[in-house]
């Protein structure tokens, strides 16, 4: 009440302004943020209840979900969005409801901070200019002609002086142009999958069966079969945050069907909040130690007659390497897993007591868990890739698989062992519907290329491991295999494909140093994200809502999407392909090769080749009926075809979802045939079986040149893991960096995308999670500003004190757009990549979840994230 007078005064002031016809646009208001256009409140009220034109649009980010969205468009303006209303919603056939980010998509697409014009930094000059000013220079608006000329001149100059070997580009349409131009240095990484990338395949869990191709998306059962489980173990799985959309809802049906849920996670996650019956708060990076403790318990307590805990039949028939009697050909019998568990060779049994000291779960609890997993008939052992985004985790996938093998929870209904992750979270199996090939032909890169899949043999082309990019720029060298370093001199970085490389790579502090070195940096961007901030030339590109769409099948196995163009390109933004062709033309290249199939042709190809599973589950049939008229409308030459639904219907609805019911024919039970007859249905591993002893894996890892592992899943301490938090392990004396840190997928962002959206900033402030016990000894209160420092960098954030995180462990969402204080060398936005070091191990795995740091109270107040000014450039020029 005491505010009444001041408020009333405000009221009169505002009322007066309104009366005078002045639009009041508060800086943080949606009216300011919604659109670069003005819409009167009256209009908005009106259209709210009027059905305008709902255009099906896509949500296109790397979020782990994929959902249906529609945008309400009136006069080239987006007024609101809605999600799936194309069919009735049931648990068996659920609508593909968008998460909060998809729901806020218009705030991103039409944000006030959308880049409007091509621009270059003021002090740029041919050859670089004052490069130390990158990141803090002013921006100058330039024309497309000028921008393209600058890029083309720099490309020509660098090529002439240093060769194509000095041009770096990690992806995007522009890569086609650069490949035609003679090629460029490439990059590879296993960022998402961590050590599952190579290990999953080598050991047999991701091994493709000939003629029935599936990789990681098929390594667990589908959501219907999961309802047959009695127990679901969620090892580092938190779909509520990392796979939004339908997956958590699907898990809820599994729970309703009667399954018990056990979570193994340093954080009592939001998925655990609704699903968990029990929780094992393991320390990050020690999962492998814990699982060895579980397996030792099984071995120790198993008695085939009185207390059968181990499925010996499965081990003997379907695996190699468990004991000395079942070794693969040519292997040393003493190098078997059983003897390792028992400590025959090193004198250290990997028993629950040994594991407890490392992983933080008391031995008695480890034993209880072991018995429960073994004594329950139908179990899903699910893990995400998170525990494998740990340095030295190359054997973890194999250890996880081995538990599945010992307990036999593989290859039968309701029994599965594998990764529940990304689009295959809680729903594994080959796609039930998929798009046709777009017909865009690949253009070979003469200079760079090659991923970790082709590694293991000498790499002839230049391809920098993602986690060595910054050091490669600074030192001119990177690791290209065992005993093999390669020289590289990066002069020009072309960051197409809307990558935010500077924000999304660990060792970010080094990144800020390295980014000042090359002669020229150009990027494509929607916003001034961290990477755009530090570039010389920034080219504004359209979002997917400003382009005609193609069929999109990168969601869960049951859906396919077709988005349409909702609005005309904002300001002067252009499609990535347009830029690729313009630059190509200026370089004198054949642009017909760059866009080897027109957008229309690609649409037709992806539509006519789209297939859907037949009702009997045996084979596929064409998805779409395409008429002469459709073909004419698309604007291509083609022949009509018959399919399940009409092209027109897909265009209008934007989504097709294969209806499902519990007794349909689309079940997926991986390795079922294999389990029944492993001789007749061998895997693609060397032995044809699941390999608990896998020489191929050990050789594969060694070939990368960073570290070596054994053919059996032995535990290797992470570089900056729990053990390294002590200066003396025996006396348990803590080191200078005593707390563990790991970063998580956070609902504010998908990767680093969406970080600028004010609604999401408000809903999910970037907070630093810490346990009350750790906070208390440091005098930190809930909401205090803290400074977190690792060996690699420092961030400032507010502390979120919560019992949900285990003592000794801290965490933050990944992907915040840095606000670097160059003088103090700290990041006020809390990018987790400032804390994670660029440490590479094994098959090129990064250590995002194996970090160490110290936290202290920090004197200054932080402005809440959603009140930080948006990065708006050239404000005054309103688009009409």
């Amino acid at each position: 009440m005491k505010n009444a007078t001041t408020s009333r005064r405000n009221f009169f002031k505002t009322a007066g302004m309104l009366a005078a016809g002045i639009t009041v646009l508060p800086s943080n208001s949606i009216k300011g943020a919604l659109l670069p256009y003005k819409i009167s409140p009256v209009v908005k009220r009106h259209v709210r209840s009027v059905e305008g034109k709902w255009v099906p649009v896509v949500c296109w980010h790397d979020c782990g979900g994929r959902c249906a969205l529609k945008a309400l468009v009136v006069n080239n303006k987006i007024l609101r969005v809605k999600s799936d209303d194309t069919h009735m919603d049931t648990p068996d056939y659920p609508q593909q409801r968008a998460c909060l980010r998809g729901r806020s998509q218009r705030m991103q697409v039409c944000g006030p901070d959308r880049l409007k014009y091509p621009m270059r930094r003021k002090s740029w000059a041919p050859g670089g200019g004052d490069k130390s000013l990158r990141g803090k220079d002013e921006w100058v608006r330039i024309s497309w002609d000028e921008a393209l000329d600058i890029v083309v001149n720099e490309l020509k100059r660098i090529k002439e002086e240093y060769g194509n070997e000095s041009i770096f580009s990690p992806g995007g349409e522009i890569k086609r142009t650069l490949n035609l131009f003679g090629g460029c240095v490439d990059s590879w990484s296993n960022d998402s999958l961590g050590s599952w990338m190579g290990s999953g395949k080598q050991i047999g869990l991701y091994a493709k069966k000939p003629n029935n191709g599936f990789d990681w998306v098929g390594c667990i059962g589908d959501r219907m079969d999961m309802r047959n489980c009695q127990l679901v173990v969620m090892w580092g799985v938190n779909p509520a945050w990392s796979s939004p959309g339908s997956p958590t809802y699907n898990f809820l049906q599994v729970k309703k069907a009667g399954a018990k849920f056990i979570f193994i996670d340093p954080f009592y996650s939001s998925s655990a909040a609704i699903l968990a019956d029990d929780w094992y708060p393991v320390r990050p990076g020690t999962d492998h130690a814990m699982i060895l403790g579980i397996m030792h318990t099984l071995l120790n307590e198993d008695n085939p007659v009185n207390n059968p805990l181990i499925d010996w039949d499965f081990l003997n028939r379907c695996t190699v390497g468990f004991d000395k009697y079942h070794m693969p050909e040519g292997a040393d019998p003493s190098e078997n897993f059983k003897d390792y568990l028992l400590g025959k060779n090193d004198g250290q049994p990997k028993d629950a007591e040994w594991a407890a000291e490392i992983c933080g779960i008391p031995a008695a609890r480890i034993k209880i868990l072991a018995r429960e997993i073994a004594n329950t008939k139908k179990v899903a052992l699910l893990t995400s890739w998170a525990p494998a985004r740990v340095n030295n985790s190359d054997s973890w996938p194999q250890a996880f698989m081995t538990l599945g093998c010992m307990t036999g929870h593989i290859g039968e209904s309701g029994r599965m062992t594998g990764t529940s992750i990304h689009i295959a979270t809680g729903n594994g199996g080959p796609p039930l519907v998929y798009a046709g090939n777009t017909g865009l032909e690949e253009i070979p890169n003469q200079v760079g290329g090659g991923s970790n899949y082709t590694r293991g043999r000498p790499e002839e082309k230049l391809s920098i491991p993602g986690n060595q990019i910054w050091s490669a720029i600074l030192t001119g060298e990177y690791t290209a295999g065992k005993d093999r370093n390669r020289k590289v001199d990066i002069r020009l970085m072309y960051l197409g494909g809307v990558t935010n490389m500077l924000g999304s790579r660990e060792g970010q502090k080094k990144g800020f140093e390295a980014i000042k070195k090359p002669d020229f940096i150009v990027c494509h961007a929607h916003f001034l994200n961290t990477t755009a901030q530090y570039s010389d030339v920034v080219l504004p590109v359209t979002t997917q809502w400003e382009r005609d769409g193609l069929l999109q099948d990168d969601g869960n196995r049951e859906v396919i999407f077709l988005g349409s163009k909702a609005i005309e390109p904002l300001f002067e933004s252009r499609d990535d392909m347009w830029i690729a062709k313009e630059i190509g033309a200026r370089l004198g290249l054949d642009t017909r090769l760059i866009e080897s199939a027109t957008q229309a042709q690609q649409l037709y190809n992806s539509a006519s080749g789209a297939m859907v599973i037949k009702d009997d589950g045996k084979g596929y049939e064409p998805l779409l009926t395409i008429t002469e008229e459709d073909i004419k409308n698309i604007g291509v030459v083609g022949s009509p075809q018959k399919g399940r639904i009409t092209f027109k219907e897909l265009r209008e609805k934007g989504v097709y979802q294969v209806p499902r019911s519990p007794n349909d024919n689309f079940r997926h039970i991986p390795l079922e045939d294999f389990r029944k007859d492993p001789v007749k249905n061998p895997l693609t591993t060397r032995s044809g079986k699941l390999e608990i002893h896998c020489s191929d894996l050990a050789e594969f890892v060694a070939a990368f040149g960073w570290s070596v592992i054994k053919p059996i899943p032995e535990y290797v301490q992470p570089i900056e893991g729990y053990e390294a938090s002590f200066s003396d392990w025996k006396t348990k004396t803590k080191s200078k960096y005593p707390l563990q840190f790991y970063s998580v997928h956070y609902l504010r962002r998908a990767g680093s995308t969406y970080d600028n959206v004010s609604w999401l900033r408000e809903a999910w402030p970037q907070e630093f999670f810490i346990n009350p016990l750790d906070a208390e000894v440091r005098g930190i209160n809930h909401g205090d500003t803290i400074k977190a420092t690792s060996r690699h960098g420092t961030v400032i954030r507010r502390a979120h004190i919560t019992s949900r995180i285990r003592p000794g462990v801290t965490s933050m969402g990944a992907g915040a757009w840095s606000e670097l204080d160059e003088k103090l060398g700290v990041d006020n936005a809390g990018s987790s990549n400032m804390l994670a070091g660029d440490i590479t191990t094994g098959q090129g795995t990064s250590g995002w979840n194996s970090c160490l740091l110290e936290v202290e109270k920090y004197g200054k107040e932080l402005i809440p994230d959603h009140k930080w000014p948006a990065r708006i450039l050239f404000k005054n020029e309103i688009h009409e």
Partner: protein
Amino acid sequence: MNNKNQLGFYLDSGACIGCKACIIACKDKNDLPVNINWRRVIEYCGGSWNSEKGNFVPSGVYVYYLSVSCQHCESPPCLEACPSSAISKGDDGIVHIDQEKCIHDQSCLYACPYDAPQFGSDTARMSKCDMCADLRAIDKNPACVDACPLRALSWGKMDELREKYGNITAIDPLPDGSITSPSMILTPHRHTRLLSNGKGHVTDLPEKAPTEINGIGPNIIKQLK
């Protein structure tokens, strides 16, 4: 007093993951700026850690979420408090703020124990949830209800909701239902009675001006331990 037509919300707290899709859907539908949240999600958390043989073990750690908007109370104190009679209760029990009559003195905000009325510094008006009156008028569900990826939210006539879901209208940290007779039925989260026992705390970080953090205002913050 029992209005047969009274509409209300239903929340299955046991299914809510606190994702805030409902908040964003509400903001999108109603064009709400930051700082104005007709729907809020409260994170309620508790439990502690014990030391056991050199290891820490959790003791009753839990978290659950409550997504709340205006409760369209049967005895709305906001209505009583408004000095300019801007607030009224319709035949369907929906509590409205008449934007023309509102003199934004914020009496309703202080009266409402749910922090439902939100002050828009841009519009200089109080505003709050009207259960998407416009969408209901064309036979659609409120935006938040259709948005929930967990299908934790629903709405309908209170009599029917009660029949289907019981009559629990408050769990920690919400105010006792007897104060305003809120029109929301809850299925309590499984940890509500087992563990929370009034000993948890709201963990959303309050700002200096508490009304500004996710729209959770002084009345709920008050209940912070």
